[in-house]
């Protein structure tokens, strides 16, 4: 069973390796390799979750290195939470890969796209089954890297490559916090294993300042990955990537990682009220703010991007107020309907060729499958029963109310209202009204995933609903406190959803001239929302500008001092070398040459002795003989 669980992330990795090396020959077939291996992986995930439902809980690990006698482990651990994530990631991810076959079919880097998708799946699945903080960090970074590849996939466009870089760097800021959090956590408790993070361990460290700090730092990582305020700025820009990538990042992988991390570390946050307060506050603020921004966006994908940020804020808020199961439940349902929304938006873009909602309209006739699935997703996210979004959102609102955070509760209700409004606004602007251009329905490889996800969006909420006695919540956490159906919350929730729907209906179907007037009248709100509180501009003017000037300073230091010193050394070396060269040429070589020259000169003189005349030799011989005779006697 462990082997099977291990194969779940490894199969996409194998697909990545095969496509990377053989992509040139495989061409179109590389997609089928990715789909095939991911399907097998999905199948394994199904069997694994089946075993886990039956009560199995398996883990395996090996010591990687030992620090102060404490082993640092690598391995896998599958508990209910991880099993749920495995199921969601493989299922939704594989559908998105199938969808990409249709969406990317004309792309020149077609095989590479599937290689990246598979790598992304591998990273996310590896992250899910990590048993320690260090291992999760490794996969965390891999996920970030893959997001960089995929968001900047069309890197010929400057905006796309900028967006990839922005996502990567913004995440890096959060990851620094995450890394420091891991370090301080290890310092405080001496363990990195998730299985050690029990309430008992936390009890031993009650009131520890270091641990509080570490929890907040760990949350920094989640802020970056899950695009929470103030690091949410990368996510809307990430829309520059191909739409399947947006779906994958927003539904199954990447942003889910942050929520998953906080859910994993729930015992820590639960034990430190200050930290969970921060989580709840950031989550609520993000949820409200992003929903507010989504109200006035005109780009179909931008609306969905802010919607994702908002929904992630919801999940964070839920976990922050103690509703860990509610948060993870929403994570699962959201994965389905948000993937469906993005794929639907992709289908619309693919079919109509535009991304601005003002240029769309009346598409329900020409794209019936996309339309109906989109309706289901919209109803699900807006929180109208009995669709999945209702159950999970209701759960979150109930846990917010029960924990006694009234401000958070009402803010989330407001957010729900706005969510319902902007989603129906999107729906009406895109599919209703006048037809503004030619559009065609997408091929079956694209509509099939839509249909499957639509079924999922309807049904996936049921396991957590009162009809099944909150089976899902009990599955994820055994310590789950029973949440009663709160009539007040349910009524309020349905009322806000319907109110949002009706407002959108009036403004965008019945009295279509009204939005412009309202925008003029409430210009202050409109400008704030439309310009997203100028947060991007604020970062540009402060952090980025400071950073750039600091980088400029560092550059000048580099150029003026370090480079110059290096160059000086270089020049001096060249000068000395020239001197040595001169000495070599004229003195050392000169001496050698002089010896040779002198030898030549003397031999030129002496060679005249050798006349070659035999009688001369004879003469000298006799002469020599005589001299010898004379010397002897």
């Amino acid at each position, binding site marked *: 069973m462990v082997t099977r669980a291990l194969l779940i992330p490894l199969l996409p990795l194998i697909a990545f390796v095969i496509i990377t090396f053989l992509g040139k020959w495989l061409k179109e077939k590389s997609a089928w390799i990715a789909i095939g291996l991911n399907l097998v992986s999905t199948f394994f995930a199904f069997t694994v979750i089946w075993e886990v439902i039956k009560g199995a809980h398996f883990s395996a690990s090996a010591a990687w290195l030992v620090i102060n006698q404490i082993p640092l482990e690598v391995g896998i651990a599958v508990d209910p939470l991880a099993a749920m994530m495995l199921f969601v990631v493989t299922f939704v991810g594989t559908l998105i890969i199938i969808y990409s076959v249709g969406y990317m079919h004309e792309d020149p880097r077609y095989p590479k796209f599937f290689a990246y998708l598979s790598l992304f799946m591998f990273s996310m699945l590896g992250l899910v089954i990590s048993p320690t903080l260090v291992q999760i960090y490794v996969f965390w970074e891999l996920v970030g890297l893959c997001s960089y590849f995929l968001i900047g996939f069309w890197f010929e466009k400057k905006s796309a490559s900028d967006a990839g870089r922005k996502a990567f760097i913004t995440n890096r800021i959060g990851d620094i916090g995450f890394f420091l959090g891991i370090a301080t956590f290890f310092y405080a408790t001496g363990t990195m294993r998730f299985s050690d993070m029990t309430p008992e361990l936390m009890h031993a460290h009650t009131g520890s300042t270091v641990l509080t700090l570490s929890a907040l730092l760990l949350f920094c990582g989640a802020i970056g990955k899950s695009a929470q305020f103030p690091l949410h700025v990368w996510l809307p820009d990430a829309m520059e990537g191909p739409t399947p990538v947006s779906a994958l990042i927003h539904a199954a992988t990447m942003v889910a990682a942050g929520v998953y991390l906080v859910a994993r570390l729930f015992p820590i946050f639960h034990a430190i009220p200050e930290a969970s307060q921060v989580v709840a506050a950031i989550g609520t603020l993000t949820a409200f703010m992003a929903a507010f921004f989504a109200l006035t966006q005109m780009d179909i994908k931008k609306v969905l991007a802010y919607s994702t940020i908002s929904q992630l804020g919801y999940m964070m808020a839920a976990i922050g107020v103690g509703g860990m199961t509610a948060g993870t439940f929403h994570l699962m349902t959201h994965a389905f309907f948000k993937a469906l929304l993005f794929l639907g938006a992709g289908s619309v873009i693919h079919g109509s060729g535009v991304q601005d909602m003002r240029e769309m309209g009346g598409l329900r006739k020409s794209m019936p499958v996309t339309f109906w699935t989109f309706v289901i997703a919209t109803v699900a996210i807006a929180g109208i029963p009995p669709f999945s979004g209702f159950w999970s959102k209701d759960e979150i609102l109930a846990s917010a109310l029960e924990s006694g955070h009234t401000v958070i509760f009402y803010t989330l209700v407001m957010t729900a209202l706005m969510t319902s409004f902007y989603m129906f606004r999107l729906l009406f602007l895109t599919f209703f009204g006048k037809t503004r251009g030619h559009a065609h329905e997408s091929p079956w490889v694209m509509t099939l995933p839509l249909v499957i996800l639509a079924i999922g969006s309807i049904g996936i909420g049921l396991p957590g609903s009162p009809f099944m006695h909150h089976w899902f919540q009990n599955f994820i956490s055994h310590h789950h406190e029973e949440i009663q159906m709160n009539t007040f919350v349910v009524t309020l929730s349905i009322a806000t959803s319907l109110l949002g729907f009706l407002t959108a209906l009036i403004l965008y179907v019945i009295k279509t001239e009204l939005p412009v007037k309202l925008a003029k009248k409430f210009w202050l709100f409109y400008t704030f929302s439309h310009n997203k509180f100028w947060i991007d501009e604020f970062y540009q003017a402060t952090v980025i500008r400071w950073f750039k000037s600091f980088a400029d300073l560092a550059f000048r230091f580099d150029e003026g001092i370090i480079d110059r010193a290096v160059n000086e050394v270089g020049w001096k070396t060249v000068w000395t070398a020239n001197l040595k060269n001169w000495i070599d040429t004229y003195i050392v070589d000169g001496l050698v040459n002089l010896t040779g020259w002198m030898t030549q000169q003397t031999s030129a003189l002496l060679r005249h002795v050798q006349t070659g005349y035999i*009688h001369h030799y*004879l003469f000298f011989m006799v002469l020599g003989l005589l001299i010898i005779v004379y010397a002897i006697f």
Partner: protein
Amino acid sequence: MTIPLNHLLIFTSLLFLIGLYGALTRRNLVGILMSIEIMLNAVNVNFVLFAASLSPKAGQVFVLFIIVMAAATASVGLAIVLAIYRNQKTIYTDQINLLKW
């Protein structure tokens, strides 16, 4: 009657010097060879003389060997001269300077 040893030694010395003079002055290779033969003969005579005046007298036998050897060396010498002639078309030493550097 016996000729005193001194006279005979003077004779062989003269003979030797004549040969030496010839060897040094002649330019013809054959002449040089002949002069060398003269010097050889002078030495031979000297040999015989000392062998006769000193005992044992068997030393004279060696002179016969030397004569035979001289004949052999002369033939080798003449052969060299012949080879030089074929190569250089001359046997005059002042025209042959192949030994020069």
